[in-house]
């Protein structure tokens, strides 16, 4: 088994996708000779030529709009937004065209394109380089929004995203680019739209995705030390959402914590908490806790540690899951009104 980083797995996925289908084209800012600022497209323009992997003018809306046009003609563009916050100029193209073209034309024009976005913080970069923008896309019908947490998923999910007939917003947890694991590529993992249980447990379920899956696993390890058995679910696909896997886990454990880096307010964790509660209400011993980024603009490097949900914050949320609640339905245990998840903690 070879040690492979997420970045290498994504690079390999693009290489194999380019080789497998002549209609696949990869372009964006600096993805050509440079290989992308994170080197995810390293070597592709040299290997496949500047016709298949190339640098475009510096304009995200134009990059996305031209990808729409290429897809209309049967190509499968894979475009890169250099950083999360630099995808915002393309927002109109994504929301009003990428997401709607199939619906608008009743399936006559489909847009099999992939928008790759390195997202999230934790790499000590200045402002605009650490946003977690998944909620904006997840709330937009017509888009598939996925995010891999492992190298194997990075490869498999990106291949699947390129092959998908639907447009896919492919969110890459940038601080995990360099995380290595043993994996033999090419590898195909579970279908892109399924959540997976990364660690089994019986007392509570930690629901995470992308950059926070690893944090959740570390927290589960630590919780085990404190005698609590935490199951960890990696969502993988934010939209569509795999209710079956998530609900099955929470019904088993009766308690849940959802973890993400984006600000908690109106963040994706709210959807997770809401639908888990809807589906598991009578199994829940405590409200679903949200451990999220603070409700602030992404902080400067020296302070990002306070913003990013870490093991300690997950553990203290776990502690607040009312382990020995002795309450009668309809009445509040002492202090329950003050029971708050971190979001409005």
């Amino acid at each position, binding site marked *: 088994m070879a040690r492979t980083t997420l970045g290498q797995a994504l690079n390999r996925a693009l290489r194999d996708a380019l080789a497998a289908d002549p209609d696949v084209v990869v372009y964006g800012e600096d993805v050509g*000779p440079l290989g992308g600022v994170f080197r995810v497209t390293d070597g592709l323009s040299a290997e496949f030529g500047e016709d298949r992997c190339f640098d475009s*003018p510096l304009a995200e809306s*134009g990059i996305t*709009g*031209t990808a729409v046009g290429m897809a209309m003609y049967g190509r499968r563009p894979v475009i890169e937004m250099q950083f999360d916050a630099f995808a915002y100029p393309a927002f109109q193209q994504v929301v009003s065209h990428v997401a709607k073209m*199939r619906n608008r034309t*009743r*399936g006559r*024009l489909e847009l099999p394109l992939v928008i790759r976005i390195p997202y999230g913080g934790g790499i000590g970069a200045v402002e605009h380089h650490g946003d977690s923008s998944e909620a904006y896309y997840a709330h937009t019908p017509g888009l598939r929004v996925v995010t891999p947490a492992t190298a194997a998923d990075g490869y498999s999910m990106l291949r699947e995203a390129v092959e998908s007939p639907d447009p896919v917003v492919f969110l890459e947890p940038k601080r995990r680019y360099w995380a290595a694991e043993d994996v033999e590529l090419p590898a195909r993992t579970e279908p892109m739209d399924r959540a997976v249980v990364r660690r089994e447990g019986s007392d509570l379920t930690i629901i995470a995705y992308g950059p926070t899956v690893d944090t959740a696993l570390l927290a589960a390890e630590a919780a085990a030390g404190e005698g609590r058995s935490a199951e960890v679910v990696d969502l993988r696909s934010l939209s569509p959402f795999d209710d079956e896997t998530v609900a099955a886990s929470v019904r088993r454990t009766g308690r849940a914590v959802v973890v993400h880096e984006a600000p908690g307010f109106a963040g994706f964790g709210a959807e997770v908490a809401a639908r888990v509660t809807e589906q598991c209400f009578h199994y829940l011993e405590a409200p679903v806790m949200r451990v999220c980024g603070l409700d602030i603009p992404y902080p400067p490097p020296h302070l990002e540690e306070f913003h990013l949900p870490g093991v300690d914050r997950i553990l203290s949320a776990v502690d607040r899951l009312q382990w020995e609640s002795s309450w009668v339905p309809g009445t509040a245990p002492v202090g329950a009104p003050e029971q708050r998840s971190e979001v409005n903690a």
Partner: protein
Amino acid sequence: MTTSEAPPVAVPTVPSAEPIRLIDAEGRRTADPAVRAGFDLPGPDTLEALLRAMVVGRRFDGQAGALAKQGRLAVYPSSRGQEACQVGGVLALAENDWLFPTYRDCVSLVARGVDPVEVLTLLRGDWHCGYDPKAYRCAPQCTPLATNASHAVGLTYAARRKGADTAALVLMGDGATSEGDAHEAYNFAAVWNTPVVFLIQNNQWAISVPLHKQSAAPTLAHKAVGYGMRGYLVDGNDAAAVHAVVAHALAEARSGGGPALIEARTYRVEPHTNSDDPKRYRDDAEVERWRRRDPLARLEALLRSEGLLDDARMAGFQDEADRLAASVRERLSRPPRRTADDLFAHVYAEPTAALRRQRAAVREAAEHAERTGGPDGGR
């Protein structure tokens, strides 16, 4: 390995301040060669085809306007007065070329041969797009201004890479040129050298905003200079000139000459849409001046004075137009075909589990409503 040095680019000539015109306001061939700018009047067949399509287009436009007034369309933005731009541009397209129209350009779609009822699907409120874009090589009518321009660039780029000589014609308004998306599309087209012709129908108004609040450029055609594109200023009420210049630009673009930007100077003689109230912002006098520059009358006068058109032929065009209008009336009197199920069918290639559940819930509610009298909508 590369250096930053660019391949030498020719400084594009600044477009003339005087629009290219082949037929003058009185319907005579333009005498001044400077005003013709080296373009020749199209042949008789083309001129006749232009007139015919404009007659049919105008009749369609009037019919659609009437249906809107009757409330049988959700809204209708008239093409009236801009037929020379839309017909002149579309008839210059080859079979496999693509048209990228806006909400303003129903007449261009009719001229392209799209079923007129399918053209009106959007404005009737039946669905977002009624026709098959691939069957007609016509993109859906675009409402978010200037956003389809980059689609045309990408489509023609892809076509070239696949060995096709497909070109594209993008229709956009004067106001749309202010959007960042217009700029990005022009630049991508020029840098990628894609065969796209951007035809700006400068009808002087963006709803209530006059051109001088929109741009300080000498002409909109001058925008071409900053992209290294060819730029042309043409009389937008002269179908012959629009056709000649667009045909030339498309041919150049197809043979690798790069994209072009054409400003067709015309006028929106009708309100922005049937629900607009132009009295609030513009003088009737100006409208009247432009009504007298009618593009149909101009071309008809030329054809008649050159003995290329007689009453019988003209009557034939009118009959065709009336028949089309009648069939549009008749077919639009039938109820819309779409049902609630359609809402869920094409959000994704396959409806998701959540969408299947929502579809079932809506069906159930609809059946329940059947029994108890109509869904309550947003009330």
